[in-house]
């Protein structure tokens, strides 16, 4: 199925609509200015890609919501969506509002805009919204969603600004990717794409604006904040994206780079691009929109996708502003102009990289582009193993302490369960086999201990002397990144977040990936919670190892699906079919989670069941799941 983009909406430092934003780009304007919203007096530099309208909004929550609403509304309007009851939302966000509220924005936005489809939140730091766009395409391709609005939102807060400052990542003047000075400038904003099947768009009589060709993702397995300097991670994401798009390196004629401006990012990214595109890389113009938008964090991927698409529509490519002189061994054509350059782009590549070492690559094509799916029919999926970990110290039995020096409870629990499933499957850590394994995690908040450590450091010292180490752990994908590093996992890695996160969204997305894509044959799906005040569950992690194409496996994942019931019917939906009650001994009824999948597998292994269906709806957000596990042949 060919997925097309039929609408775009943005709010960023250059304006509150695509039109305003693009006019700014054409005029060579920069959205980077002195920060007035919070007190930056202790810091130097004091710059940010700030949205002026945001300054008068009273709280972070409202600001985040306001940006998201403005951009999403524009997107829906631009796509001429009239029936919102079947529109799904895939939203990427990272730093905006910390703690257990990370996913509130998605539910609030869906409710405000009366979106009746699925609501999925992705939180993978600076790749959040790029992951969201990729997953949206998968939902459409698999028929799980009819129309999706996908993108992301983040705001610049004092915490994030101070954290980047303390890590020494901020540029002394507006950032100048691939040039001087070194360092980045943070920004904020919201951007959404409306995506749907070409057929749907035709039926609605709506003109498509671009074709979504494909996406790829990877993990560096290297460091919490720095990219793998050889760029192997970004190279892997690009290669996967080209494969998904059925394109070759020579087909790409523009790259919108992550290009944060930091020494570590830009050099690693360029090396990764060179490895992925070989000799063709030096012939492609590569620019970074962060030079005029700042680094939009979780929203960066979507903001940059819109910059790219707007350029394609106008037959130009956006420049890299503030470019003075080239860094040694940097891209030969970074589009170092003040204004967009005339250039016909047939296929554009957008890359992003995140804390925790995650990378994404998106490929967009012009309207006449063809699309060929990776697989005509899905591969069967089996369950190779499972684990439940309640012991934070369990992981210490397997990896030496110096590899897990400064970490937190969530990461320890998750690492323990990943160690369990790898051990059960006989896969040695950091082996060749791990290089391609994927990891999808369902996790609804950052680890409470890291958040406390961060807050205490500010309270007891001051904002300028915050705990840099705790700051690096404040991205939801930090525990996943730790697992990648510990076990050498470098395949597709992502983190979804619901409230509470049952891991079932991660399971469905992982199963889709295995069934339909060539990224990997093995995928670990896990859910982790360090504390869960709502359900009273103990801190724990649950994990499954899924394998594609194994016909002989004793346990099969027969069906996986997500749905959303717009009408609240908690009580009815809480009963599980198939004989496995979700009534846990001594506790109140709770929605099923990955733990119930584990129980189902055990029941099949024990010969007490041949097939178990788990069907239920999450009480808080009406997201429903139907999972069937059965005995293999």
């Amino acid at each position, binding site marked *: 199925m060919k997925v097309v983009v039929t609408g775009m909406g943005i709010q960023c430092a250059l304006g509150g609509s695509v039109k305003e934003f693009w006019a700014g780009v054409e005029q060579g304007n920069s959205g980077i200015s002195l920060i007035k919203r919070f007190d930056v007096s202790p810091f130097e530099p004091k710059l940010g890609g700030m949205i002026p309208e945001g300054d008068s909004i009273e709280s972070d929550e409202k600001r985040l919501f306001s940006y998201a609403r403005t951009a999403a509304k524009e997107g829906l309007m631009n796509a001429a969506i009239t029936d919102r009851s079947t529109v799904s939302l895939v939203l990427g966000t990272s730093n905006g509002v910390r703690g257990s509220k990370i996913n509130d924005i998605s539910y609030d936005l869906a409710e405000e805009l009366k979106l009746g489809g699925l609501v999925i939140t992705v939180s993978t730091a600076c790749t959040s919204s790029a992951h969201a766009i990729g997953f949206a395409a998968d939902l459409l391709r698999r028929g799980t969603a009819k129309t999706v609005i996908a993108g992301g939102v983040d705001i610049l807060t004092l915490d994030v600004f101070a954290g980047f400052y303390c890590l020494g990542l901020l540029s002394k003047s507006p950032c100048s990717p691939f040039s001087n000075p070194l360092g980045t400038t943070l920004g904020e904003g919201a951007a959404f794409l409306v995506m749907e099947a070409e057929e749907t768009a035709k039926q609605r009589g709506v003109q498509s604006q671009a074709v979504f060709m494909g996406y790829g993702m990877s993990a560096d397995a290297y460091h919490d904040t720095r990219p793998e300097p050889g760029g192997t991670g970004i190279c892997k994401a690009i290669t996967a994206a080209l494969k998904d798009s059925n394109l070759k390196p020579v087909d790409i004629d523009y790259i919108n780079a992550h290009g944060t401006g930091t020494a570590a990012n830009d050099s690693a990214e360029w090396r990764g691009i060179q490895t992925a595109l070989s000799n063709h890389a030096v012939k492609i113009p590569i620019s970074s929109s962060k030079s005029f938008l700042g680094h939009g964090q979780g929203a960066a991927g979507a903001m940059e996708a819109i910059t790219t698409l707007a350029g394609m529509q106008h037959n130009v490519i956006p420049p890299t502003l503030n470019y003075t002189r080239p860094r040694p061994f940097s891209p030969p054509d970074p589009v170092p102009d003040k204004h967009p350059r005339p250039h016909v782009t047939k296929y554009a590549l957008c890359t992003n990289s995140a804390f925790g070492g995650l990378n994404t690559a998106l490929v967009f094509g012009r309207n006449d582009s063809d699309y060929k799916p990776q697989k005509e029919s899905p591969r069967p999926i089996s369950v190779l193993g499972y684990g439940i970990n309640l012991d934070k110290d369990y992981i210490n039995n397997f990896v030496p302490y110096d590899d897990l020096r400064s970490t937190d409870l969530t990461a320890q629990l998750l690492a323990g369960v990943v160690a369990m499933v790898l051990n059960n499957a006989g896969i040695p850590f950091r082996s060749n086999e791990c290089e391609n394994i994927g990891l999808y995690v369902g996790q609804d908040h950052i680890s409470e201990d890291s958040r406390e450590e961060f807050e205490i450091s500010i309270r007891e010292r001051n904002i300028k002397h915050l705990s840099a180490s705790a700051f*690096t752990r404040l991205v939801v994908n930090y525990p996943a990144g730790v697992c990648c590093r510990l076990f050498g996992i470098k395949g597709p890695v992502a983190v979804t977040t619901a409230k509470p996160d049952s891991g079932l969204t991660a399971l469905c997305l992982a199963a889709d990936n295995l069934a339909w894509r060539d990224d990997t044959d093995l995928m670990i799906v896990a859910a982790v919670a360090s504390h869960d005040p709502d359900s009273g569950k103990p801190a724990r992690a649950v994990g499954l190892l899924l394998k594609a194409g194994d016909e002989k496996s004793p346990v099969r994942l027969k069906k996986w699906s997500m749905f959303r019931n717009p009408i609240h019917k908690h009580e009815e939906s809480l009963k599980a079919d198939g004989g496995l009650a979700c009534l846990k001994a001594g506790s109140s009824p709770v929605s099923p989670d990955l733990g119930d999948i584990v129980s189902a597998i055990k029941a099949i292994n024990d010969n007490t069941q041949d097939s178990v269906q788990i069907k239920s709806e999450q009480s808080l957000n009406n997201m429903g799941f139907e999972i069937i596990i059965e005995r293999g042949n």
Partner: protein
Amino acid sequence: MQTALKKRIEIRESTMIDVAEILISALHLKFEPGDLDPDTPLFGSGLGLDSVDAVVIIVELESRFNISISEEEGKNALRTINTLIDLIIRKKYGNA
């Protein structure tokens, strides 16, 4: 032994104990204080610390010893445990 030297040795020893304690607790190093030799490199080889640890060390030293360390001073002192001790002694006791 002359008092001046005795005093210097005492300062050196107590600062070493404090720095070792700070490194172990703030960076969660799995070493006993006696395992940390004063000329141990901090980055690359040695303790294998990274840029995030560097920030943590400076902030911890500033707050524990009530001193202010500039970026330049920090960069020059972040070589070994001994160069950190030199910096602290210089800041707290001058060059005496």
